[in-house]
């Protein structure tokens, strides 16, 4: 696997150094009618860290992603990215600001090749339009060549280099998950949000993926990770935020979380028999 050579968004973070907050979720509440999906949730992500967002099913983890990427507008509260409130920014504008994500249920562009999928992501950084495409102006040629090169680099990095011309929907499941990460990285994010990237992986695949995520962080990206596998989360993250029923119930270092009785009860599960 090669490195992601181009566009390191920030200097590689060292886990211990004091860093600025790249993203702040401030008192976010989200209601759907009578259902409170997120209830006054606040947390922040430091630049250069891997933050784990965990919680049982239906805790509001993916909803939290959706608020951060502009899919939902919070009922109250705000999300600030690098100090700026996201406000009513559109989804693609937030992507261009520097937040990229993957999806829990894979959402690739199935009838496009792997390379084209990643190139769509890379196009987020491109500025030429129809006119320059129609007349193949020099800038268009340059951007096209750069986009292709970067997409290929990212495919190589994710271990998909030899599958560039395969249709996304024909790729095996694991490759599709990795392709989603490559596509998200291509948008040139500062913050990469991964929604259960290891779902459905066997333990060996999970380990490889976690190494990869660490490697991505070492390139200077900040990573927000939703993951179910507790052992995995403990191994890879710098800090952890725990949600349950739309509330934040704990936040801290992996060791602290592991020892937190509320988390153990909520997330690791108390047998119904034990609870009653």
């Amino acid at each position: 696997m090669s490195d992601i050579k181009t566009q390191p968004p920030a200097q590689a973070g060292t886990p211990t150094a004091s860093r600025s907050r790249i993203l702040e979720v401030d008192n976010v509440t989200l209601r759907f009618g009578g259902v409170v999906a997120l209830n006054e949730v606040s947390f922040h992500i430091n630049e250069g860290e891997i933050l784990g967002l965990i919680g049982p099913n239906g805790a509001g983890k993916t909803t939290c992603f959706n608020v951060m990427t502009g899919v939902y507008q919070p009922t109250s509260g705000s999300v600030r990215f690098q100090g700026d409130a996201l406000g009513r920014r559109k989804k693609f504008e937030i992507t261009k600001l520097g937040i990229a994500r993957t999806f829990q249920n894979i959402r690739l562009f199935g009838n496009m090749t792997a390379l084209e999928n990643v190139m769509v992501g890379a196009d987020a950084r491109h500025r030429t339009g129809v006119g320059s495409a129609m007349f193949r102006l020099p800038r268009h040629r340059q951007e096209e060549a750069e986009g292709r090169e970067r997409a290929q680099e990212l495919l190589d990095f994710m271990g998909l280099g030899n599958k560039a011309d395969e249709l996304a929907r024909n790729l095996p499941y694991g490759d599709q998950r990795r392709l989603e990460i490559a596509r998200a990285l291509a948008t040139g994010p500062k913050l990469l949000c991964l929604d259960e990237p290891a779902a459905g992986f066997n333990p060996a695949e999970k380990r490889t993926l976690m190494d990869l995520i660490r490697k991505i962080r070492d390139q200077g990206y900040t990573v927000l990770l939703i993951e179910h596998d507790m052992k995995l989360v403990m191994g890879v993250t710098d800090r952890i935020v725990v949600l349950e029923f739309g509330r934040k119930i704990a936040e801290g270092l992996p060791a602290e979380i592991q020892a937190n009785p509320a988390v153990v009860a909520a997330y690791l599960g108390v047998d119904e028999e034990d609870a009653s």
Partner: protein
Amino acid sequence: MSLFTATADRVRDLPKPAKIALWALFVLFLFVLPLLNLPIITTPDSDFGGVLFTVSTYVLVALGLNIVVGYAGLLDLGYVGFYAVGAYTVGVLGSGHGSLPWLLCVPIAVVAALISGLILGAPTLRVRGDYLAIVTLGFGEIVRLTLVNSAWLGGAAGITEVPRPPSISLFDVPRLDWSAGPPVVDLDNQTTFLKFGISDQIPYYWLALLVIIVVMFFDKLIKDSRVGRAWEATREDEDAAELMGVPTFRFKLLAFAMGAFIGGLSGALFAGKQGFISPDSFPLLLSILFVAAVVVGGQGNRWGAVIGGIVVAYFPERFREFQDWRVLVFGLALMALAIFRPQGLLPPRRTVRAKKADEKLEALEEGTAHV
């Protein structure tokens, strides 16, 4: 059609000069096609030049609609509206309320069509799928009803004496005559190169063919760029595309405007050849036929759109003797197509490739099952 794909593959592998020569020959053949009067292909019951022109306008429309339906995945059932806007702009400016020459009317007509595309698209492209289809369906009818009810636009009677393209009579070209067995050059029946008259419709076909070639050229350049990728990404998964930084609304509007532009261009050509336009020339059925052309040909492939346009426009003219059965046969053919070749006669190459990969996979799985 697999023969077609195989041929296409072989052409692709040729060295560049040979490829260019082959393309030039192909284009030349298309240009002289109406002069050759080839047996079987030539329509027995109607003027072949005129039929070829009609086919060309359909092909052009299919190319435009392919951008909207095939690339961007927006079902537009009111495409005839843009065709009408193009034709009527030429009619109104050239005859109804002005006397501009045809050449000057055309750029105004395509811009008018483009603007009408933006006006229709800006509010409606916020709705998706079925809703968009219904709204566009309404648009086509609104245009037609406006034409019928507006005296200023000629009402139901339409507009006559629409200007024709300017003639430059340079030289005469003879045709072939096959009536006596082996072909002989028929010097009594000649076509004047670029004389846009009433009786000889071959020059109109030449003009339309030229326009098609230009449109296909730019279509290819746009499709093979970030614009084409953005359209496809939007078609595949609009939300995911948006979250990957594609301003989907803008690109959908662009697809709509470009489709309208090409539809308007086709309408302007039609008006210039016909010399007379009325609301009857733009029925709802035409919109359906246009969509059928794109779907039959294979959505998302410009050559598919060409084939679709030819199928929809040419065959009914060629087999006029079965006129009464036309719609029935067409319906049956569509059903057969839906069952046996749902992706169209000439689907995008990638779809073909994907199918092959699927088949290979299946074969592999079966292979292991037997072991």
